[in-house]
């Protein structure tokens, strides 16, 4: 009897771990980009607030480009054209760079909104207590403005985490790319996409829950 060659094999437990590992990679690339992007975004937001039209014209315009051009185009362009200026980054590195700038672009507007949410009289009051500009910024503006825009920032975090799936177009094996590989092999798209969705949910849901708890505590 002649043996048949099979190209496809069923979903096994090792595939589950393959997906879990990819979910960790999604988490890692997101945490890295969101952390650095948030710090940069806050600095840019502060510059936009303080620099007025000059900052709006310079950094504002650049950030507008990153906010407006689809992420997938930014990723492909950067990955393929960065080597021309001597930047030879692997898919992970390229993904981190673009996701970080993209996060910074989104956070800059949120941060500027946060700074502007602190009433000018309150800032004057802190200055009359002898606080320097920087003390006012760190002890008054950052905590009060931060709380005001915290829900908007959480929205950015969840958005970027899901958008990190687009780094898969560069070949980085994160959750979505891992799912595509498994679907090709097992031909079980429903099961695998449902699992990938569950992993995304498991990553995002705790963030929303924690965020809601913080907001509740601050509202008291």
């Amino acid at each position, binding site marked *: 009897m002649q043996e048949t060659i099979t190209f496809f094999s069923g979903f096994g437990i090792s595939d589950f771990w393959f997906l879990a590992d990819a979910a960790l990679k999604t988490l890692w690339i997101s945490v890295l980009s969101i952390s650095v992007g948030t710090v940069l975004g806050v600095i840019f937001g502060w510059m936009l607030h303080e620099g007025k039209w000059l900052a709006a014209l310079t950094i504002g315009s650049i950030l507008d480009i990153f906010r407006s051009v689809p992420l997938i185009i930014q990723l492909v362009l950067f990955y393929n054209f960065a080597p021309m200026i001597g930047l030879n980054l692997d898919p992970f590195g390229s993904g981190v760079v673009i996701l970080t700038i993209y996060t910074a672009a989104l956070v800059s507007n949120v941060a500027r909104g946060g700074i502007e949410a602190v*009433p000018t*009289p*309150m800032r*004057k*009051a*802190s*200055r*009359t*207590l*002898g*606080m*320097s500009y920087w*003390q006012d910024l760190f*002890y*008054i503006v950052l*905590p*009060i403005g931060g*709380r005001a825009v915290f829900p908007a920032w959480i929205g950015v975090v969840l958005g970027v985490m899901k958008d990190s799936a687009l780094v898969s177009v560069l070949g980085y094996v994160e959750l979505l790319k891992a799912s595509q590989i498994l679907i090709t092999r097992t031909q079980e798209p429903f099961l695998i996409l449902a699992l990938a969705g569950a992993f995304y949910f498991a990553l995002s849901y705790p963030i929303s829950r924690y965020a809601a708890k913080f907001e509740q505590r*601050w509202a*008291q």
Partner: protein
Amino acid sequence: MIEIRNLHKHFGDLHVLKGIDLEVKKGEVLSVIGSSGSGKSTLLYCINSLEKIQQGTVKIDGIDVHAKSTDVNKLRQKLGMVFQQWNSFPHLTAMENVALAPRIVKGKSKAEALHIAETQLKHVGLGDKLKSYPSALSGGQQQRLAIARALAMEPEYMLFDEATSALDPEKVGEVLDTMRLLAEEGMTMICVTHEMGFARDVSDRVAYFHHGVMEEIGPPEQIFDNPVSAHTQKFLANVR
């Protein structure tokens, strides 16, 4: 002593203060009255350099407030200020609100700063609200918190910018009582106010401002009973 000489302040084309000359001695309580837009609040803002001036000088104990070489943050520690809106820091408890500046500006230890905060809050009658957040306090209580916060820096002068104007009528009394207490304790105060009773009872002198000019200054009896300026007479007739 606060010495103001030929002070001019413009907001664009608007000439808000037109050559003010004024001296306030240590221990003195000066009330500044006048209709809205007469430049009373701007005067206070110029005294602690929240607003730049275009001409003249403001000196606090001989230090030129607007000189480039002056450390404004250090100078402001001498000048407590209370605004119309209390501006409590909403993310901090009453104690933390008061303790913040002594800790980060004066470099006091946390325990020391909290001790100062507790003392000052008790001083203004908020001893039972130490752990309360501003959102749980009434307008009058928040204004007293603002006074305690300013006092915690051990200022030598207190500037009050219509401290009771934004309060519900029934809360005005408690804030005025606190201001009275400070006056009795010998604090040097400049109070921009619409409370004529307070100005008459508590002040050593009252100044009347009209369209950026200090029209008249003198003891309360003189200003309220025998005003010289026609503008002062008209103003007082309207507010009585």
